[in-house]
């Protein structure tokens, strides 16, 4: 958990960071499931592992494209 969060922060390249963040979202989701919180786990997985990284990737695609 803590290692994963640290990794998200320390990865400086946004593209890789988006991937790590997605894994982090998934790990959090699993942890919440262990914490007997399936409702939260479900929304954390849907949002943290799918929707948010997707938005980050789209934003990144936009930004990277402008630099080329």
């Amino acid at each position: 958990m803590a290692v994963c969060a640290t990794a998200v922060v320390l990865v400086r390249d946004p593209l890789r960071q988006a991937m790590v963040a997605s894994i982090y979202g998934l790990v959090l989701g699993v942890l919440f499931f262990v914490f007997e919180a399936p409702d939260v786990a479900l929304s954390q997985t849907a949002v943290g592992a799918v929707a948010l990284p997707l938005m980050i990737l789209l934003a990144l695609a936009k930004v990277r494209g402008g630099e080329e």
Partner: protein
Amino acid sequence: MSFLPYAVAVWVMGVGLYGIVTSRDLLHLVICLSVMQSASYLLLLSIGYVDHAQAPIYADVPLGTRAVDPVVQALTLTDVVVGTTVTALLLALAVQAHKRYGTLDPRELRPGRERADG
């Protein structure tokens, strides 16, 4: 063990803040902000956890089975939505800022900087 989840939450918060302060890229900064916010999910759920208890869902278990606190879960759900929306809004700001100024380095994006060279 009984203190570990709390300590992890504090660590995650600290790491997130560190990332925000040292960030050189707005997208990176926004992700760090959401990492920091995840500390509050962790803290809330840890507070409401009960040893050897069920999830607060009585679909398959008889009423009266010991279950963890449903309130913190509801609060965390709200918090997840709030965190997501703020992140989305910030991402939009970052994208637009990049479009306008061609950079994502927060050190170069300084609004109304007070110029001392008066």
